[in-house]
C-alpha cells in the first residue's frame, strides 16, 4: 500500500485500511510515517514552548538557555513515544493472546503506529488557536483529536486481532486500569490517613 493511500485511509477510511494493514503489515513504512508525525509534533511543541518562554522567564539569557535545550526535549519526546508504542503494543499482543486467544504482534505494531498519526494535529490546532485568539475552539478541536485517536486505536486493535469492539475496548483499557490502580490505592490510603491527622 502506498504511503499516500495509507495516510488517507487511516484518516478517512480507518476500518478498511486497518483491516488491510493487519494483513500486509508494512511495519517499516508505518513506523516511518509515525516517526515523521512525532518529529512534526516535537517541532510544533518546541515552537509553542519557545514562544511562551519569552513571556514566562524574566531574563533573556534564561530564555536563550532554555531554548537551546529544545532539541533535547524533542528527541526525548520522540524516543519516549517510540518506546511506549513498543511496550504498549507488546502488552496488547499478550492480552489478546491471554484473554481471547488471538495474536498479531507485527500487525498491532503497524496499526498502533498509524493510529497515533492524527494526534499530531493536536499541537497544530493549539498553535492556530493561540495565533488566531480562538483558544476555546482550539481546545475543542484538540479534544476531538484525542477522541479520534482513541477511537482509531480501538479500531486498530479490533481489525488487527479480528475481534469485536467490546473486546477491543477491554484490551485497550486494561493497561491503563493497571497503571491507575496504584494511584487509586494511594488515594484511598491518603483519604484513610487524613482521618488520623
Amino acid at each position, binding site marked *: 500500500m502506498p504511503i499516500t493511500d495509507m*495516510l488517507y485511509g487511516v484518516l478517512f477510511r480507518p476500518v478498511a485500511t486497518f483491516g488491510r494493514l493487519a494483513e500486509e503489515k508494512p511495519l517499516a513504512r508505518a513506523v516511518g510515517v509515525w516517526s515523521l508525525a512525532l518529529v512534526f509534533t516535537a517541532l*510544533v511543541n518546541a515552537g509553542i514552548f519557545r514562544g511562551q518562554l519569552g*513571556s514566562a522567564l524574566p531574563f533573556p539569557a534564561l530564555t536563550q538557555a532554555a531554548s537551546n535545550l529544545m532539541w533535547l526535549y524533542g528527541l526525548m519526546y520522540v524516543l519516549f513515544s517510540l518506546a511506549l508504542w513498543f511496550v504498549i503494543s507488546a502488552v496488547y499482543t499478550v492480552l489478546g493472546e491471554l484473554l481471547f486467544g488471538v495474536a498479531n504482534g507485527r500487525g498491532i505494531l503497524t496499526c498502533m503506529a498509524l493510529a497515533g498519526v492524527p494526534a*499530531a494535529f493536536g499541537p497544530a490546532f493549539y*498553535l492556530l488557536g493561540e*495565533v488566531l485568539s480562538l483558544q476555546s475552539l482550539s481546545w475543542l478541536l484538540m479534544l476531538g483529536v484525542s477522541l479520534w485517536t482513541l477511537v482509531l486505536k480501538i479500531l486498530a486493535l479490533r481489525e488487527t486481532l479480528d475481534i469485536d469492539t467490546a473486546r477491543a475496548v477491554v484490551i485497550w483499557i486494561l493497561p491503563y486500569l493497571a497503571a491507575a490502580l496504584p494511584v487509586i490505592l494511594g488515594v484511598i490510603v491518603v483519604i484513610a490517613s487524613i482521618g488520623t491527622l
Partner: protein
Amino acid sequence: MKQKLVTGIVIIFCLGVLVLAARWTPSDAGKGKIKVGQPAIGVVKVEGVLMSSGGTYGGTAGTADIMQALQEARKREDIKAVLLRIDSPGGSAVAAQEVGEEIDRVRAAGKPVVASMGDVAASGGYWIAASCDEIYANPATTTGSIGVITELLNVQGLFEKLGIRSEVIKSGPYKDMGSMNREITPEERQILEDLVGDVYQQFLEQVETGRKGKIKPEEVRALADGRVMTGKQAQKSGLVDTMGNYYDALDRARELAHIEGEPQVVELNSADPLTRLLSRFSASSLVNNNTRVPMAY
C-alpha cells in the same frame, strides 16, 4: 487521485503550521491590525465576579488573566496607557487586592491607568477602580458598595429533620469555625467580625489612597456603609471623576499618555468568541453571587 490531493493538502497544512511554529511568539496573539512600534493604549477587561482562581468562563473574572494582561501592558514599550474596562459586581477581596497591586506597578512604570465603568463596578469592582489614576462612569452605572461581608449557612435544623448528625474531632476550639452544622458561638462571631473589620480597613485604605485629594477620608468612611449608588451620585460624592463612556475614557487615557492623533487600541485579555458565548450562558446566574461567597465584600 483524490487520496493524493487530500494527503497533499494535509502535508501543506503541516508545513504551514511548522513555519508558524518557528515564527510565533505569544505577543502575536490578538494583535490584528496593530502597527508594531506605534504608541498604543492597552485595554484590560474586568468582567464578572472577581476570583483569585478560575478563568473567564461562567461569568467569573479570574485574576490570573487580568494580572497577566496588566504585566504585558507594563512591559510592552508600545503601550503608553491602560484603560481598565470594569463590569464587575465585586468578588474576592484578595482578587481585588492582587489586581490593585498590579495596577500600582503599571502606574509606577509611568503609564497612566484610567478606569471605565460599565453596568456595574461595585465593591471589589470599585476597589480596582479606586487604584486607577482616573475613574469614568456612566450616569446609570451601579457603583459603590464599599464594605465587606461574610455569610455563613446553618443547616443544623434541616440535618436534624433528616436524621443526619455530624461528629467533629478537632485540634482546637475554633478549628470548625463557620461549620454549617451548628450555631456560631459569641467568641467565633467576634473573631469573624475582627476578620471582616480588618479587610474593611484595607478596603478603606485603598480607596483613601487611590482617591487622595478627590475625597476626604472622613467622607469615604461616611459612604462606606455598603450602599450602592449610581455613577452620577458617585461623581457628586467624589468616588468617580467624570461622566463618560468607554470612548471618553479612551480619549482621556490618550491625553494622559500624550499620544498624538488617533491611538491604537490593543485588547490585552480579549476572550475569543466561543468563550464569550459560553460565559453569556451562565453569567446571568452569577449576578449578586458576591453576597454568598465567604469573605467577599
